[in-house]
């Protein structure tokens, strides 16, 4: 790879990592080098192991084969699940809880809560019951809640899977804004357009294996593998 991201230090490396549960091999031989500050899209069809990969990176599960090695100290991580569960409280109440869990002192929670809600465009809805929000608004609140942890690595699992184009666009803009300063973002998607619009780097997963990795430009212009060529061309990868 020859783009600018080359000189960024690695945030973590996966070395032949695998994960199996209940006799089913979900991920096999995953070797990856994720650079700090990058915006990475993990793409692949349903069941290819995208969510499991994110859970591994988040530390919610441990690899059953191989390992994940963090360069330097492990960064603060946060994840937004595909279907985030919001608390049965108001929008602001959800954020206050997240901030308190993140260890933010009580006298700073109001201000930070306001900053985060303004960032995701939900400040005016702060007194609404969170679970009454629209799908897109719920996703944005979940992102704000994840940001309350001040993560250096943000994991987004299919953040726009059930959103309409307008809500998708708002969320994509938000992801760009978050990733810019110094946050590494890994998102999964099966939406090729989204990967093209957002990602600097691509990881293509298929049946639990990494088929291809590389810069987004390279991936879409000169895909190296048959699967990547087919996927990039918009073929259905089954």
């Amino acid at each position, binding site marked *: 790879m020859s783009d600018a991201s080359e000189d960024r230090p690695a945030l973590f490396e996966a070395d032949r990592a695998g994960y199996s549960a209940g006799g089913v091999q979900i991920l096999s031989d995953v070797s990856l080098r994720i650079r700090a500050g990058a915006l990475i899209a993990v793409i692949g069809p349903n069941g290819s192991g995208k969510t499991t990969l994110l859970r591994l990176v988040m530390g*919610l599960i441990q690899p059953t084969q191989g390992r994940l090695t963090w360069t330097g100290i492990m960064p603060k991580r*946060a994840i937004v699940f595909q279907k*985030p569960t919001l608390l049965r409280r108001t929008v602001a109440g959800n954020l206050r809880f997240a901030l308190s869990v993140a260890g933010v002192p009580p006298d700073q929670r109001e201000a930070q809560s306001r900053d985060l809600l303004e960032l995701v465009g939900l400040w005016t809805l702060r007194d609404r019951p969170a679970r009454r929000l629209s799908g897109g608004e719920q996703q944005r609140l979940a992102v704000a809640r994840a940001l309350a942890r001040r993560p250096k690595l943000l994991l987004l699992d299919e953040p726009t899977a059930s959103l309409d184009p307008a809500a998708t666009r708002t969320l994509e803009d938000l992801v760009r804004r978050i990733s810019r300063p110094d946050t590494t973002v890994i998102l999964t998607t099966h939406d090729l357009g989204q990967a093209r619009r957002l990602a600097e780097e691509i990881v293509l997963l298929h049946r639990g294996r990494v088929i291809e990795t590389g810069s987004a430009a390279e991936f879409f212009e000169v895909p190296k593998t048959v699967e990547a060529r087919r996927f990039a061309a918009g073929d259905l990868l089954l």
Partner: protein
Amino acid sequence: MLRTAVDLIATADAALIRTIELSLAVSVGATLLSALVSVPVGALVALTSFRGRSAVVITLNSLMGLPPVVVGLTVYLLLSRSGPLGTIGLLFTPSAMVIAQAILVSPIIAAMTRQTIEDLWTEYRDEFAAADVRPVARVIALVWDGRFSLVTALLAGFGRAVAEVGAVIIVGGNIAGFTRTMTTTIALETSQGDLERAIALGIILVAVVMLVNALVWTARRVGQRYAA
């Protein structure tokens, strides 16, 4: 007859009021006393796994139908002069009635708490794991988010307590002006033929039960706003 009953209510007959007050005080006290133990026990069972957990859950659920007279008898045996707790001298006092009703409603409150907390926990566990929520903070958050269902559990417990007669009549002794509740008065007055007083108390009791159900309904509706 119905007129006399309504008159008793309308004129706020002193003995009638005292009976209603005692009834409500005993049942509210029993519900709160029970909640102190039952809510934590229910939450604990919901959030822990141990050998025989299923047996505990099944027992808890079946004890919801505990016969009041059996609870009354048990508490009577415990508190009677020759019983293990006889020296405290609580038998035939309102305190004994509070204890008996608290035992009676505890399985209801504990079982409903367990169900509520367990359902919420299933839903929240991934998020809590991802956010590193500490165990104590988890319990507080689950209880708070289940607040509307837990209020419903308390109201269900109170509803059962205030309407039962078997336990309080055994341990309270139905002493006039001292341990006489709405239900025991109805039982006594009916058997003595003073039907007006019995009917008046019956009307009040039904009103209380309806009020409790209205509150349950309201709690559920408000809860649904947040649960969506």
